[in-house]
C-alpha cells in the first residue's frame, strides 16, 4: 500500500508507533501530486519545500513524544483560507499574487497541532460556483471521470482527497460548497454550525453563510479535523463561545433511540435524478436497519430557499468584494491615470464572469428602492426557513436528504445556464440559511460510476449526532472504500 492512500487516522497510528515518518508520508503525497496533478488539476500552489520542512519538524516533535492527531499529517487547504507567506489567490486573477502576512485562525490551529500543509487547492473564484469551472486559475477534473466536474466551490479539495493528493482538506461552504463536491467526488464533507469554526482569515464570500469545514476520506477523519478546527475565536464576532465536544468519542456503533427525519418536500422536488433518489432511499433503509427510527417531517418553505439564497449571498458578496479595488494589494491596472477608470479596468480584468454576475445581482438587490423587495424579503424568508428546521427538529435528531439532485455533470455542460447551476445547491443551501450543520457521506454510485452523496443535516451545535449517524452508515456500507482509478 502506498502511504498517500492512508487516512488521517491510519497515518497517525503509524506515525505514533514510529513505523513511518512524516517526511516519508509527505514525500509520498508530494510524489502522488506530481503524478496525478496534470490530470486532476487540484492544486493552485504546491508548497513542497515548506511541507517537507514542516514534516521534518513534525518528526522531531514525534521523536520527543509530542504528537497530536494531526502531527505530521499532510493536508491541502482551499485557496480561500489565508496562509501566512503562502500565496492565497481565491482562484481569482485579482489576487493571483496575493501573499497574506497572516494565518487564518484554523491554519494557526492546524500548525499548532503540527499538521503539514501540502499546498493550496482550487475552487470557484471567491467560492462562487458549484463546479470549480469558475476558477480564474485552472480547471479541476473529477478523479472518477476526468471529463466531469468535481463539484464546487471546494472542488479542488474534494478532488485532492478523492485522488489521494492529500490526507484531508479544509474547504468552505456558503451554500453547499463542501458537501456538494464531497458528494460528487465520493468523500466525506462537513459544513459545521455557523459560529462553530472561526471565519478569521477565511476570505469572505457571504459572511452570514460562510463556514470552514473538513473534507476527508472517511467519517473518523472528519471527526479528527473537526476537533482540530472548532472552537471560539475572539477575532471572529460571529464565532460562538461554546465548549467543543471530542467528536471522535461519537464514533461508536449503534443508533438505538436516534430519530431520523425525512423532509417530505425534498422527495417531491422535480429534477431529482432517479439513481440519486434510489441511493438515498437505500441509505435511509440501511440506517433504519441499524436501529434508527424514521419519521416524516415538513420543511414548507424549502421552495423559497434558492431564491432567498441568491439574494442574500450576492448582496453580501457585492460588499465583501468591494475591497478589491487595485488601491492596496492585488491586481491594479497601472495604465490608468484616472481613479474611476483604474477601478473599472482593474475589476473588469480581475474578476471572472460569475463573480461579476453576482456582484451585479447583489448591488441591484441592495439598491435604494429594491432593498425592501429583495434583501429584506429574503431575510424574512430566511427566518421562516430557520423556523421550519426548528419545528422539524422537535420530532427528530437529524434529517436525511440527497446532497445534490444529480451526480456530477460534465465539464462545460452548465456553464451557459447559471440558473441550472444554481439549482444543484437546492438541497444544501437551506442549512447555510438556517446556520445549521450539514454533512455529505458517500451512499452509492450512478450507473456511470459517479459517486452519490447522502446529506445528514443536524441541529445547531449538534455535529456529534451527525457524526454518529454517518459513522454507523459508513460501517454498514463500503462506498468509502472504493477509490477512483487514475
Amino acid at each position, binding site marked *: 500500500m502506498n502511504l498517500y492512500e492512508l487516512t488521517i487516522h491510519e497515518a497517525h497510528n503509524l506515525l505514533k508507533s514510529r513505523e513511518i515518518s512524516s517526511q516519508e508520508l509527505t514525500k509520498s503525497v508530494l510524489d502522488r501530486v506530481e503524478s496525478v496533478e496534470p490530470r486532476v488539476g487540484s492544486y493552485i500552489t504546491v508548497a513542497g519545500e515548506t511541507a517537507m520542512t514542516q514534516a521534518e519538524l513534525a518528526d522531531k516533535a514525534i521523536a520527543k513524544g509530542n504528537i497530536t492527531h494531526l502531527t505530521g499529517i499532510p493536508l491541502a487547504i482551499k485557496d480561500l483560507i489565508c496562509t501566512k507567506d503562502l500565496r492565497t489567490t481565491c482562484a481569482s486573477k485579482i489576487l493571483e499574487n496575493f501573499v497574506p502576512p497572516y494565518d487564518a485562525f484554523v491554519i494557526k490551529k492546524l500548525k499548532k497541532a503540527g499538521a503539514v500543509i501540502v499546498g493550496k487547492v482550487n475552487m470557484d473564484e471567491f467560492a462562487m460556483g458549484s463546479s470549480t469551472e469558475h476558477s480564474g486559475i485552472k480547471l479541476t477534473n473529477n478523479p472518477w471521470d476526468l471529463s466531469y466536474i468535481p463539484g464546487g466551490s471546494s472542488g479542488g479539495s474534494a478532488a485532492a482527497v478523492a485522488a489521494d493528493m492529500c490526507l484531508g482538506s479544509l474547504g468552505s461552504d456558503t451554500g453547499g460548497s463542501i458537501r456538494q463536491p464531497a458528494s460528487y467526488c465520493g468523500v466525506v464533507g462537513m459544513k459545521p454550525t455557523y459560529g462553530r469554526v472561526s471565519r478569521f482569515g*477565511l476570505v469572505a464570500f457571504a459572511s452570514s453563510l460562510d463556514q470552514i469545514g473538513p473534507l476527508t476520506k472517511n467519517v473518523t477523519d472528519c471527526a479528527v479535523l473537526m476537533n482540530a478546527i472548532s472552537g471560539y475565536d475572539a477575532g471572529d*464576532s*460571529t464565532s460562538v463561545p461554546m465548549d467543543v465536544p471530542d467528536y471522535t468519542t461519537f464514533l461508536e456503533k449503534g443508533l438505538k433511540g436516534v430519530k431520523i427525519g425525512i423532509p417530505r418536500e425534498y422527495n417531491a422536488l422535480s429534477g431529482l435524478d432517479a439513481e440519486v433518489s434510489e441511493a438515498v432511499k437505500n441509505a435511509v433503509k440501511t440506517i433504519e436497519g441499524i436501529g434508527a427510527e424514521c419519521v416524516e417531517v415538513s420543511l414548507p418553505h424549502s421552495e423559497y430557499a434558492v431564491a432567498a439564497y441568491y439574494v442574500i449571498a450576492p448582496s453580501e458578496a457585492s460588499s465583501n468584494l468591494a475591497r478589491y479595488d487595485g488601491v*492596496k*494589494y492585488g491586481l491594479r491596472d497601472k495604465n490608468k491615470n484616472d*481613479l474611476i477608470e483604474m477601478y473599472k479596468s482593474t475589476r473588469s480584468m480581475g474578476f471572472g464572469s460569475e463573480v461579476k454576475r453576482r456582484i451585479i445581482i447583489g448591488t441591484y438587490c441592495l439598491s*435604494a428602492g429594491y432593498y425592501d423587495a429583495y434583501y429584506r424579503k429574503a431575510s424574512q424568508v430566511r427566518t421562516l426557513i430557520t423556523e421550519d428546521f426548528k419545528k422539524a427538529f422537535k420530532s427528530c435528531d437529524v434529517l436525511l436528504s440527497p446532497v445534490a439532485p444529480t451526480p456530477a455533470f460534465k465539464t462545460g455542460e452548465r456553464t451557459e445556464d447559471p440558473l441550472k447551476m444554481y439549482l444543484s445547491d437546492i438541497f444544501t443551501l437551506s442549512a447555510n440559511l438556517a446556520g445549521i450543520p450539514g454533512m455529505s457521506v458517500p451512499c452509492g454510485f450512478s450507473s456511470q460510476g459517479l459517486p452519490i452523496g447522502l446529506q445528514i443535516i443536524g441541529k445547531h451545535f449538534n455535529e456529534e449526532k451527525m457524526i454518529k449517524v454517518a459513522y454507523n452508515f459508513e460501517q454498514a456500507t463500503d462506498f468509502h472504500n472504493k477509490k477512483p482509478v487514475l
Partner: protein
Amino acid sequence: MEFEPVIGLEVHAQLKTDTKIFCNCSTSFGAPPNTHTCPVCLGMPGMLPVLNKKVVEYTIKMALATNCKIEHKSRFARKNYFYPDLPKGYQISQYEFPIAQFGYIDIEVGDYSKRVGITRIHMEEDAGKLSHDPGRPISLVDFNRTGVPLMEIVSEPDIRSPEEAGNYLRQMRSIVRYLGICDGNMEEGSFRCDANVSIRAIGTEQFGTRAELKNLNSFKHVEKALHYEINRQKEIVFHGGKVVQETRLWDPVANSSKSMRGKEEAHDYRYFPDPDLLPLIIDENWIDAVRKTLPELPAEKKKRFITEYGLPSYDADVLTASLATANYFEDCLKIFPGSKTVSNWIMGSLMGLLNAEGKTIEQSPISSQNLAQLLRLIKEGVISGKIAKVIFEDMAKTERAPDKIVKEKGLVQVTDVSAIEKIILKVLADNAKEVDDYRNGKTKLLGFFVGQVMKNTKGKANPKIVNDVLKEKLGK
C-alpha cells in the same frame, strides 16, 4: 413675507479611546503615515472587525447626557462606496437601528432658553486621509485614521438661527469634554459639523428644500456659513427661484459656499446590516454601570454655581463652559472663598492672559492655588490691588507663588500709620502752594497728594490709610 431658517446639525465627534473601533491599533495623532495600521483596518482579505467595548461605553455616556433612549438592541450596517481612503469599500456605521434616539439638550441664547431635540446618536468608523501630490498625478493615502471611532449626533431641525446653532454646538462640545470622551477640537477635526439648512415662511409648518453644508471647521465658520446660506436661499426665493437639494462646501477663505453637485450627490450607499458583527445588545445593568460614572454635566453645574456661590448667570456660564475652568474656579474657592472676586479674576485677568498667550486653562502658568493666594494677600491687606496686578504679571512669567514675589521684591504694603504720616508730612511740606489751594476749597487736589504719597512709597502705602491721614492733616 418673513422667512425663518430651519436648521438641523450633524456632529461627528472623534472618540478618545486608546484603540480603534474594530481593531487594536492606536488612535493617537501625528504618527508617520500607515504606522497605526493592521490587516483589519487595512481591509485585508479575510479580516474581521471586533467591536471595541469602550466605544459603546462612551456612546452610552453621551446618550445619557443628552437624554436619549438607549436601544437594547442596535445593529451595525455597511455604508457602501468606493474611495481610496476607505479600504474595505464600505464604512461600518449604524443605519436602521442606531444605539440611541429621541433625546434633547437645552441651550441658552441671549435671554431665552430652548430645547433642541436629538434625533439619533450612532457609532461609526472614520476613513483614512488622502493627500494629492501637486506636482505629479499621484495621490497618497494614510490609513492611520481609518477605524478611529466616531460618534454621530443628529439633531432635530429645531434650530432657528445661526446663533442657536453656535450655542448648540458649544453646548455639545462642552458635554463631550465634560464626559471626557472627545477632545472637541473643531480645527483639528476631532469635532466636526455638517448643517442641514432650509427656509420657510414664518407661520408655515412645512419645511423648505434643504441644502447640506459641509466643511464647517470652526465655530466662527459655522455661524458665518449659516448666515451666508440663509441669505443665499432668501435671495433665491425673493427672486422667484427654487432652492435645490444639494450638498454645499463652505470655503472659509472666500467666505462663500459652492455646490458639490454631481458625483457626490448621486450616491446610493446600499446600506445593509453588517453580517460580520452581531446585533449589539445593551442591557440595563450596563447602562446603570455607565450612568454611575457620569460627571456633573455643564447645565447642572451652572445651576449649582448660581445657587451655591451666588454667581450671576453670565459668570456661571463662562466658568462652566469647560470642566477645567469650573474645576479651577472651585479649586480657588478652597483657598479663597470669595466666589465673585475669584470669578472676576478668572474671567478678567486670567482669561485675558490665556487668550493673549493662546493657552488653555490646563496650561495656565498661574495655578489655581497661586491665584487664590494672591487674592488672599489682597484681602489680608498685605498688598494693594494695584500691586497685585504687578505680582500677577510676574506670576504669569515665572510661575512662582505670589508670597515669594512679594517678599523678594519687597512689595509688602505699608500699613504702619506713623511711617505713612512721616511721608505725608514731607509731601505737604514740599507742596505748600497746593496745600493752600486745597484749604481754599480746591479739594480735587486730594488725588494729587495721594499720587505723591504713592510715588514716595513706590505704591506700597495702604491707600485707605493714606486717604484717611491726608484728609486729617489737610483739614487742619
